[in-house]
């Protein structure tokens, strides 16, 4: 389907597309991601109709081919047979005829799935844990590199988010892998990645507020959503200011050197001989998951009705460590139990996430209100923000009530049995 997109500068969010069926179909799929130009091709489409003796169209054949012979990199021409409802047999015959003419049937879907499936099911449990850890760290480095250009160009908020996930995964892998990795990893690289993570936090926090603002505006009961416009402007200004040092750091020679050194370190790690006497990937994975699980259970059991928010935040971090342990160890643990464990954990993480978000956002909104008042913002804006704080208050109490149930469910016997299943074979 063609859509006129003149005068549109890419990358752009889906709402920049002209309204119509293409925009309607794309918007829910891309969500908050920007559309970027992956390739630029000029194609020519031909549609042929296959008719029966009554002149009724029984199948459509579409020819999609490069528009000019100079498009050497363009994907090759392809014929698609479109089946019309009630005329499946005719479409099948058309396909057979085309294949009989020597055309090669293209593979459908599947390929990508099988590739990702093979990725998650390949490592031998007997290999040294270092091999598994190095592979995981390399994947995270690749993800950081992949997301860096979009982050620097501020294409959309998710490049920074995905960059941060890769950094956090690296930190969790280093921490979990301490028993199997050289000491230098702990002394040099753990602090280095903590600094990198911290560097990205202020912009991400502001991104979350900006992204949540449309949802928050629905919470307003007495205020008008437009009363939040000054808050949106304030957040944009703060974000622009916070991005400057982040971008400067990530463009610096120092950061470039850090990445180069890290890659070299991983190459060196990968090149170490796989001699005996090292803990195996399977043993390490089982022990790491169980240890991380026990830390969550211990931390959760210590939570009381009057526990401060910081304790719940600490528990949330332990949950994230368990989540990363399950992800990093995925190539050497049984798929079924791992997926169930992630699902169980997700419920607890969701409750803890809401608890922390409510707590942090309440304080942050108060801080923003004070800053805005010194800049002479309107009373309506401050009152609207007060309503948001009230809503967050109520939601936090609700989430706190839900926590006990979510934790009891997670720490229950079925979850315990599940965690002990790891190592029980693939």
């Amino acid at each position, binding site marked *: 389907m063609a859509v006129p997109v003149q005068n549109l500068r890419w990358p752009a969010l889906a709402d920049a597309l002209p309204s119509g069926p293409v925009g309607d179909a794309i918007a829910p799929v891309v969500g908050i991601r920007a559309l970027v130009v992956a390739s630029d091709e000029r194609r020519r489409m031909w549609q042929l109709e296959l008719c029966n003796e*009554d002149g*009724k169209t029984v199948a459509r054949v579409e020819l999609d081919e490069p528009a000019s012979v100079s498009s050497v990199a363009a994907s090759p021409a392809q014929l698609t047979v479109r089946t*019309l*409802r*009630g*005329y499946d047999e005719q479409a099948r015959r058309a396909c057979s005829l085309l294949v009989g003419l020597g055309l090669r049937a293209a593979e459908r879907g599947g390929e990508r799935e099988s590739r990702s499936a093979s990725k998650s099911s390949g490592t031998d449990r007997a290999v040294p844990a270092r091999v598994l850890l190095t592979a995981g760290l390399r994947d995270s480095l690749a993800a950081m590199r992949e997301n860096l250009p979009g982050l620097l160009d501020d294409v959309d908020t998710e490049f920074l988010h995905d960059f941060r996930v890769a950094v956090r995964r690296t930190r969790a892998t280093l921490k979990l892998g301490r028993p199997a990795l050289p000491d230098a990893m702990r002394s040099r690289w753990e602090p280095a990645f903590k600094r990198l993570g911290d560097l990205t936090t202020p912009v991400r926090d502001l991104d979350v507020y900006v992204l949540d603002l449309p949802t928050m505006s629905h919470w307003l009961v007495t205020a008008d959503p437009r009363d939040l416009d000054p808050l949106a402007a304030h957040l944009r200004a703060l974000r622009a200011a916070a991005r400057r040092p982040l971008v400067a750091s990530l463009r610096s020679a120092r950061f470039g050197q850090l990445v180069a050194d890290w890659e070299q370190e991983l190459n060196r790690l990968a090149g170490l001989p796989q001699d005996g006497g090292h803990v195996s990937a399977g043993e390490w994975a089982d022990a790491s998951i169980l240890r991380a699980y026990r830390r969550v259970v211990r931390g959760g059991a210590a939570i009381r009705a009057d526990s401060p928010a910081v304790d719940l935040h600490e528990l949330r971090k332990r949950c994230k460590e368990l989540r990363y342990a399950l992800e990093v160890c995925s190539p050497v643990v049984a798929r079924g139990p791992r997926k169930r464990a992630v699902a169980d954990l997700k419920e607890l993480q969701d409750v803890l996430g809401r608890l922390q978000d409510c707590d942090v956002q309440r304080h942050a909104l108060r801080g923003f209100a004070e800053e805005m008042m010194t800049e002479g913002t309107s009373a309506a804006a401050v009152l609207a923000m007060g309503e948001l704080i009230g809503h967050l208050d109520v939601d936090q109490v609700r989430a706190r009530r839900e926590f006990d149930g979510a934790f009891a469910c997670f720490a229950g016997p079925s979850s315990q049995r599940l965690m002990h299943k790891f190592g029980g074979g693939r």
Partner: protein
Amino acid sequence: MKVMATYNIKGGVGKTSTAVNLAYLSARGGRRTLLWDLDPQAAATYMFRVRPRVKGGGRALVTGRRPIEAALKATDFDNLDLLPADFSYRNMDLEFDDAKKPTRRLGQLLASVADEYDMVFLDCPPSISLVSENVLHASDTLLVPLIPATLSLRTFDQLTRFVADSKGSRPEVVAFFSMADRRKRLHRDVIDGIARDRTRVANTVIPALSIIEQMAERRAPVPAFAPTSRAAQCYEQLWAEVCPR
């Protein structure tokens, strides 16, 4: 999903032409549209170049032995599917009579495709029968083409009484004049004199035009093969008047 039936006790009044053209216009406007040709004469099926055959016949559909999804056929037009006629539909009364709720079965069958379509047209055979009762219960709107003649109005009165006397939910009855010839004084008198207070009568009048008769020859809706013709414009006006909002 809205259901609109083109119905009249009399035959040859323009039911099929109306169903075919309005279904086409509905689909052209972006509504996912189904036309069910209930008339065993299969004129609507013929106009869409589809073969008038349903595996297992009407009985298989009514008994549920064959889901109606399996009998659907795409037409040559986007968004427009057809449930073809079958000669066995002549016995559809008997099939409905054997069903559990004989007057509700058609509505139950349509409910199974409610997620797939925004608009369903029923092109009905000319009669008053159990099929007609099913159509009444299944439809939101009964679109009644009237030839502007005294006997037509008499039949229309019979029809409105039939609808009024039927139990349960009743469709809105919308009449419109079809095959009208303004050169005939009688046609002009009937069109101007119809009592518009008792029932809804559309303002659009479909004239008797040879291009409408050509539909059977061209085997396509008028707006598809003669989009700028007066007939196409009249059907567009009629659709604008009666289409559900």
